[in-house]
């Protein structure tokens, strides 16, 4: 007998495009594409953690069928390259042969990410009876100016490999890329489908849950299914009946709550402790400073503060983030932000 997967969010992961919860229109469009056997480059846009990648994966699986394994690749644009990968990209650098002009004697390198992760895949021909390979690039906006490198790639290798670019912030995607893609706006799951899913899970796990609690769950997780399922699993440990207290207790253990308490600590004016906590959050969850500032500004919007205070704090966060772009040591910028909030709290 195969043992159950102990993590529910993995256990209840859809295995087919049809099993994706809700979002019927998107599914219809994708199914139509699969029947047509042809599609342009796609750009999936939608909020965080609502299943964009999963949809792209399942779509590719059904499009490529048995030839899925060799013809599909998923890359993460926001994961830094390892040292070995960097060295590999460096060794591909070559010296320009032109004798005059600005390029004379220059070392020419292509962006390391494209060199290491993308090119080797798109250059090889598709295997088996499929029209082309599929490359999925997640968090595409994280590539920044390296997006330029994709412009030519998408044209040169377009007939061999179609790309599905996934992003949360379409404003950070450069225009030439947008014009080369068909855009799919992927919405968060609708409440009705969310409810059906939660009821399905609770039934198969022998739990009880009230309709009103599902509503609360939908609100606090903002439609993120994985997080909702995580919460239910946490609650189920102590109780067969999911109640509101258990949900909030589970939620309070998440990192968002740590960030929230960090902000509150600053507003009480305790700088040394706040710095300690900020460092702990960054190292435990492996946040870089930029993610950290984003997280802070998100939590700030949820705190019950006056508009004046909120604007002032947002101003401080923005300034710190801005300086960190140029700065060398991001810890200094984080500390600066905390100390300024501590000082500001004295006027409240």
């Amino acid at each position: 007998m195969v043992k159950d997967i102990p993590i529910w969010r993995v256990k209840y992961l859809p295995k087919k495009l049809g099993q994706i919860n809700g979002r019927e229109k998107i599914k219809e469009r994708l199914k139509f594409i699969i029947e047509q056997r042809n599609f342009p480059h796609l750009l999936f846009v939608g909020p965080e953690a609502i299943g964009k990648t999963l949809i792209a994966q399942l779509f590719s699986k059904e499009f490529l069928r048995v030839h899925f394994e060799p013809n599909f690749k998923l890359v993460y644009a926001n994961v830094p390259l390892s040292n070995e990968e960097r060295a590999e990209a460096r060794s591909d650098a070559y010296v320009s042969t032109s004798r005059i002009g600005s390029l004379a004697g220059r070392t020419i390198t292509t962006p390391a990410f494209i060199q290491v992760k993308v090119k080797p895949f798109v250059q090889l021909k598709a295997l088996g009876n499929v029209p082309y390979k599929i490359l999925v690039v997640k968090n595409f906006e994280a590539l920044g100016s390296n997006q330029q490198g994709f412009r030519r790639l998408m044209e040169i290798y377009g007939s061999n490999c179609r790309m599905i670019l996934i992003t949360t912030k379409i404003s950070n995607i450069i225009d030439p890329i947008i014009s080369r893609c068909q855009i799919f706006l992927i919405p968060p799951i609708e409440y009705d489908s969310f409810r059906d899913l939660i009821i399905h899970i609770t039934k198969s796990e022998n739990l009880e849950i009230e309709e009103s609690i599902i509503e609360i769950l939908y609100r606090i997780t903002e439609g993120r299914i994985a997080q909702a399922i995580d919460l239910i699993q946490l609650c189920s440990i102590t109780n067969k009946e999911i109640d509101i207290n258990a949900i909030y207790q589970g939620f309070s253990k998440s990192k968002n709550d740590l960030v929230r308490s960090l902000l509150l600590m600053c507003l009480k004016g305790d700088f040394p402790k706040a710095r300690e906590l900020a460092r702990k959050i960054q190292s435990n969850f492996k946040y870089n400073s930029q993610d950290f500032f984003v997280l802070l500004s998100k939590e700030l919007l949820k705190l019950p503060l006056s508009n004046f205070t909120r604007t002032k704090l947002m101003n401080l966060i923005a300034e710190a983030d801005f300086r960190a772009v140029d700065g060398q040591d991001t810890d200094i910028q984080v500390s600066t932000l905390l100390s300024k909030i501590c000082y500001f709290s004295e006027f409240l």
Partner: protein
Amino acid sequence: MVLLSKIKLNSDIPWVEKHRPKSIKEMAIPNAKVKGQKIILDEELRDFIKNFFSEMRLINEENKKINIFNRTHGEKERKEEKQISPEKAAILLEGPPGIGKTSIVYALANDLNMEVVETNASDTRTKAKLEAKLKETVKSRGIMDYIVKSKEKIILIDEIDGIYGVSDRGAVPTILTIIQSTQFPIILCSNEYKQSLQPLYNKIKKYELSSLSNEAILGVVKKVLKKENITTLKASDLELIIEKNNGDLRGVINDLQGIGQGILDENTKELIFKLKRDSTEEIFSLIRDLFQKVTSLRDARDLTNKSDVDYNFLYKWVNENLPTFIRLNKELAKAYDNLSIADEIFGRIRKNQYWSLLPYFYDLFAGGVPLSRKQRFANEGFLRVAFPRYITSGLLSLSANERSLVSKIKGKYEISDIEAMQDFIPFIRILCESSRKDFKNVSDWLELDANEKKILK
């Protein structure tokens, strides 16, 4: 008269040049590695030179035949002349300064009765200059070389990491072509890895040299002292000097000359010992002075000018220790504002080479930060200075256990490294803390070993 000038000349020569080893036997040979494998450097170099010449002889003979062939045949049938492979024509010695990279080449040349043709960072090394200096030497032997059997040569291109900027444009490709058409073995020396030299690294073998051991340095230094007739130096002082220089033999000899020629003036001695670079005690006291003694920007400047601590580190120390010395939130905010602007300026300097901004950087982090404090505690006492604890950012730094845990998760569930660390593992951790049964199920599912389980507990 002659005698007098000779004596004068002798004392003018830096000891480093005067006592440069004439033979490999006199040398402290630095430890060397090739791709992590330990080797014996002098033997390896000898082999390299021997192999080069035997290879060269073969190639030259073949080229002679090709030449004759080409002369008698038409344009179309001509064969190309053979060239030696770069791997056999040149090697790179890479290591910290003062351990004997240049010396070993000269000593070896002396032992093998060869001549050294050297170019170093003091020459501008544009393409044209390099070609003028080396190409003729490299390519052909002069007529005189055949009449008088002259010495063979070694070509030493020293300090190649000093090839820099517009003034040396085109140097790297020129060196590459020189390597391909050389008649003599080429040795390149460098202190550190530089990306602009990557095309060179790809072609030739790299020897990584490490610092000399203190014992090896002591052996050489004793001989020098004997030759210079210095007997007054205490053994403990000598140890200190060696310790301070951290494996840099040239530095040790320079310091000894400073002491030896001044006939052991107490002040010079003190000065030399003070230069013990970046020692933590010095930073400790410097940080204390910065926060507790500085009363004006001028003070701060004097203090940083006098000290030898790398400012790269110093401002990180300031960051770490700021809350220890400044405790009022108002002053903290002001101090941090100055520090953060200093950091921003420093970043721009590094990114765009705006070195003219450097004075602001100094004034802001060394002066602006401590001067933000108006009140002093009545009885401050002795405050503990702490080491900076770096938070690595930008690069994702995972421990070995975390890495293996992430890769096991990725085998079961499609997720990126970052998502795993930020989202998935924290959840599993909470789950495992709350229930023993789930902990067992999860570790069975992921087939975890003991170390990986520790992360979850």
